[in-house]
């Protein structure tokens, strides 16, 4: 009654076959990572100085990945053709190679399309491309003009259609601005130097149209232009000066408490950004100490504003210290997964742990054969 069988060994995986099945998805993943890194290099405050051209590199990376994906489609096609002839001899449904080549043929073209779409997305939506309709207009005049002349020229050319020529604001949409843009925007009289410094240095201004969420971008003006614009806007009168936070030595635990109280509801407790009905809350990992302090004091877009009466300078320093520390928090447990909690953790549980363990199961158990 005893039966002894030898279990058929799992056929050795041909690298070509695996390339046909997994080549295109892998190319897409590589492209995603490259795209992320490139936009990081382009859009972050430190990366902006590296002078990397996102478009050129992004297109090049996309082209390489696309080529790999197309190659995997062709491989799958070749395998499909070769096994189709052999199919009549083999058992139905035509053997593993045939089946996997069909899978490759289904999957790979999908990723060819996906890579193309990703490429269009990264180039079309990249930070350097998100220009206002008119772009920025450099004021006439050479380097010899005074700061005030430069500021006035840039202001008239780039800001006045929405904020008014004297910074009185444009409460209702009205045409007739520079370049016939329909402009609308808040008054700048009394905002001081702090608001233009924040909006221009984080690349949030100029924006496309009023009401649109200003998002962090690579600043479109250079440092000299920004200084000129800031002093020009400040000259409309009044307003606070640019804060000079001193986060060194401030208490991190007080910072955490204040941040939880005032900021974490929107920005997430480690500053990883979030959602408030109607707007996307920025991630704080790129903000400098001065920009953090400025944002607290002016409350850009939908953010509340905290005056020195609500948060004194010592408390502000603690918040700034906490935000700066939370860029690189204590990852005692290892790789931090972006510090946003269970969403990436669940992805690791499924896409790393479960995949590895299913792989072990497949190694251990025989797979179903027709």
């Amino acid at each position, binding site marked *: *009654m*005893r*039966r*002894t*069988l*030898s*279990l058929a060994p799992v056929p050795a995986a041909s690298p070509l076959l695996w390339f046909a099945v997994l080549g295109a998805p892998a190319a897409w993943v590589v492209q995603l990572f490259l795209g992320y890194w490139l936009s990081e290099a382009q859009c972050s405050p430190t990366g902006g100085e590296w002078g990397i051209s996102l478009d050129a590199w992004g297109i090049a990376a996309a082209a390489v990945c696309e080529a790999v994906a197309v190659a995997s489609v062709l491989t799958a096609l070749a395998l499909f053709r070769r096994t189709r002839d052999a199919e009549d001899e083999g058992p139905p449904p035509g053997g593993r190679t045939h089946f996997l080549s069909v899978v490759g043929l289904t999957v790979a073209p999908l990723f060819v399309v996906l890579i193309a779409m990703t490429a269009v997305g990264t180039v079309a939506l990249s930070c350097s491309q998100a220009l206002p309709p008119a772009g920025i207009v450099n004021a006439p005049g050479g380097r010899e003009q005074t700061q005030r002349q430069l500021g006035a020229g840039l202001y008239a050319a780039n800001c006045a259609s929405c904020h008014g020529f004297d910074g009185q604001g444009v*409460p*209702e949409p009205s045409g007739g601005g520079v370049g016939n843009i329909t402009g*609308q*925007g*808040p008054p700048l009289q009394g905002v001081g130097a702090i608001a233009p410094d924040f909006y221009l240095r984080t690349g949030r201004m100029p924006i496309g149209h*009023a*009401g649109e969420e200003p998002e962090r971008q690579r600043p479109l003006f250079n440092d000299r232009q920004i200084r000129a614009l800031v002093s020009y806007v400040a000259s409309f009168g009044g307003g606070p000066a640019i804060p000079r936070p001193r986060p060194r030595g401030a208490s991190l635990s007080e910072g955490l*408490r204040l941040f939880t*109280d*005032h900021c*974490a*509801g*929107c920005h997430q407790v480690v500053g990883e950004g*979030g*959602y*408030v*009905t*109607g*707007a996307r809350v920025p991630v704080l990992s790129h903000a400098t100490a001065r920009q953090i302090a400025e944002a607290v004091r002016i*409350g*850009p*877009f*939908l*953010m*509340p*504003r*905290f*005056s020195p*009466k*609500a948060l004194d300078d010592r408390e502000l320093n603690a918040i700034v210290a906490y935000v700066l520390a939370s860029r690189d928090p204590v990852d*005692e*447990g*290892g790789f931090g997964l972006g510090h946003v909690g269970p969403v990436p953790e669940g992805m690791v549980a499924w896409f790393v742990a479960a995949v590895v363990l299913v792989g*072990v199961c497949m*190694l*251990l158990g025989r797979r179903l054969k027709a």
Partner: protein
Amino acid sequence: MSRTSPGPEDWRPGRRQLLAAALGFLRGGGRRRRVLPPGGGDSGAELLVALLLLGSAACGAMFVVVYALDWPNLTQYLGLCLGGALGLLAAALIVVGKRIVPEEELEEEYPTVHPEDEEQVVCLLGETGARFTRKRLLGGAAAAAGAALGAALVVPAASLGPVLDTESYYYSPWRRGRRLVDEKGRPYRADDIEQEAFYTAYPEGADREQLAAPLVLVRLYPSELELPAGREGWAPGGILAYSKVCTHAGCAVALYRKPRFPQAEPAPALVCPCHYSTFDPAEGGKVIFGPAGRELPQLPLMVDAAGHLRAAGNFSGPVGPSFWGVRTRRPSA
């Protein structure tokens, strides 16, 4: 050996074989029938297993060493050592399982039903039951005993909480005249409260870790307010106080959306970050987005002679998530 399921029998020793085996055992060995097919001696696999086991041993020893040291990133080194030891041991066993152990398959029968045993059980129960003649009486009495004893055993669970008295849901530490204090216990003055900021306030001298304690304070222009009828004078100088606890699922309403340029941007709103229920502070906490089904309770305010903010009564409605029968009745202290 059961009758209906032969089980995975490989060899069935008869009496004679048993005797022979016993004799052989007594004589110190001798020839026994094999269970497994002969074979073995895959020296390559054995070497691999040995290497994996030694690697596992090395990792295990490393764990002990690393534990004794006090390095930074200790958790990572410990994890690598222990995970490595386990992983290499797993690999060794997998190699044993796939290369050394004989690959055999047994064939056996699936167990099925046991009609004779079933019949015995049915008879046993039926015959025992037949001895009882007054079935209805006994059944009723047994049911009564079971129910009463069950109730007696379950009732102490009621001590876990005041089950029937749900009045505590309407409790609030706020009452007329209670001052609003900040996180550090300093009373808020009316002129501390600025437009465009938001503040968290607590009842002075009360426990803060209860749903009805925390408030969110904002200030709007009195002309912007469209509070429901009957709330006149609740917002002195445009200062509004709402419960900081969402009426949907009890999270803290810790977001204040305050537009910089109201003409083109969304109106001011209080938002809960759990499911993004959004409340309009200008309209008495009306829900304007999200899953909440009830407005955010508002607390009437007044300003005392010293300029401090005080509660002028209790909330406009029950605080926190809703429950069966919750009414718009105002909570009490």
